[in-house]
């Protein structure tokens, strides 16, 4: 965007919103919105505390583990569903149900099944992320150019070769799109898991700060979380753009 002939750097709108936040905060309209400067001050203050670092570690661990399982299970299942009519008929209704289901309501069931620990949080995270990854991988495989499959077949490709050298790569743009959305959903999953299952990690901090009306702390942790999710999602969007040149040409 250009303004008065100057090219504005990306995301300069954030500055404007930040300024608005600061003004509203300075006017002390509500305890709920402290000034941005105060929030940022708090942010740097708590970054060094061991409570924050422990929360960050616990959250990152559950998040990465959850996303890891969502990816290594979701992508192959999606690809196989795209390839096999039978598997697709069997699984697609379930995938669609879980994609749109209020997963939060399932969390108590998971607690009964898997206990109150990290395991349940990881599974919750995986459940939030996996369905869209499956659906996108499936969509990626279904739009594959038939003649690429015939080509591999005619040159004697085994089904393992076809899977790793044709289907995976042909579906890669859609797979990355699915992983990106899945990761954003996993952020939700990990926090909901931490709030509902056992009060650890960022979930515990949110609980603690909001119960004690420490809104500066509350927003500071939220900003950290947003920044982390945003960075990961932008990185994946970058990867997506790298492979999108061939999305139209499969």
């Amino acid at each position, binding site marked *: 965007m250009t303004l008065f002939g100057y090219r504005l750097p990306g995301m300069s709108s954030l500055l404007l919103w930040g300024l608005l936040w600061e003004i509203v905060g300075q006017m002390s309209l509500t305890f709920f919105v402290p000034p941005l400067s105060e929030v940022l001050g708090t942010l740097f203050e708590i970054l060094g505390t061991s409570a924050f670092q422990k929360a960050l570690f616990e959250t990152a661990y559950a998040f990465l583990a959850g996303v890891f399982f969502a990816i290594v299970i979701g992508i192959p299942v999606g690809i196989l569903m795209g390839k096999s009519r039978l598997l697709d008929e069997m699984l697609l209704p379930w995938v669609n149900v879980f994609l749109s289901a209020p997963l939060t309501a399932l969390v108590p069931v998971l607690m009964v099944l898997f206990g109150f620990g990290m395991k349940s949080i990881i599974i919750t995270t995986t459940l939030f992320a996996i369905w869209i990854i499956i659906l996108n991988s499936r969509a990626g495989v279904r739009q594959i150019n038939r*003649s690429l499959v015939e*080509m591999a077949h005619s*040159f*004697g490709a085994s089904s393992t070769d076809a899977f790793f050298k044709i289907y995976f790569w042909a579906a890669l743009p859609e797979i990355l799109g699915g992983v990106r959305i899945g990761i954003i959903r996993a952020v939700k999953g990990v926090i909901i898991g931490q709030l509902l299952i056992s009060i650890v990690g960022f979930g515990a901090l949110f609980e603690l700060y909001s119960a004690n009306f420490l809104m500066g702390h509350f927003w500071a942790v939220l900003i950290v979380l947003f920044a982390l999710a945003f960075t990961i999602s932008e990185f994946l969007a970058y990867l997506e753009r790298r492979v999108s040149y061939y999305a139209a040409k499969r």
Partner: protein
Amino acid sequence: MTMSQTKETLTAAGAAEFESAVSARNISKNYGEVEALRDMSLEFPRGQLTSLLGPSGCGKTTLLKIIAGLLEPSSGEIEVNGKRVTGPGPDRAFVFQDFALLPWATVLRNVAFGLEMRGVAASEREARAEKYIKEVGLAGFENSYPHELSGGMRQRVGLARALAVDAQVLLMDEPFSAVDEQTRRKFQEDLLQLVQNENKTFIFVTHSIEEAVYVSDQIAILLPRPSRVSEIIRPSSFRNKGVDNIRRDPEYLDIVDEIWASLRSYVE
């Protein structure tokens, strides 16, 4: 009148004279109720180029894919060098109408793909791929990606990939239909060179009458509903007169006219 007489004698003589590399025997193919091919038999002489020519729906691509082993016939059998075809095999290589290149792989890897599937070691398959990239005139583009190439260059990659596996039979499914007219003419001339230099059997599907007559040693005219081989034509006199003289050779022009006369009624 004289024309068709010469042709018949040549057909009779030709069939006896050549050994078949590929034989199609009583091939039928049904898709549910739809009959794509009915009881089709055809011989493909070794070291020559045979075109399958006909209006759309005559089953020419279906027959080619059955020969490739990509489709199974409902009945009948294909023999390549006396061996019955049960699926794709290293004795045949396919050139696709839409090129079927891996968009995420370089020209080098695309050309080497057939060798990669056969488990040839990386250094050897790259050396062989490079040789064929040069042969089709793409030297210097080894590390380009398909989307950086023109349509004609992409089909050269497809051709190099098929040549690199060194199959005795090359199956080409309307290989030049997606490239522009001038590139197509160049391709046709190069194809004649290729048939002469490589000791391979070519089976070539096309819907262009001129193209079929220009490049073929033998033309099988296929007609639809029910699909059948209506006629086999073997041009004789102009093949060795040089690429520039073919298109004004009287026999070339006669055959083109004659084929059009027999196909005209099948074109809506």
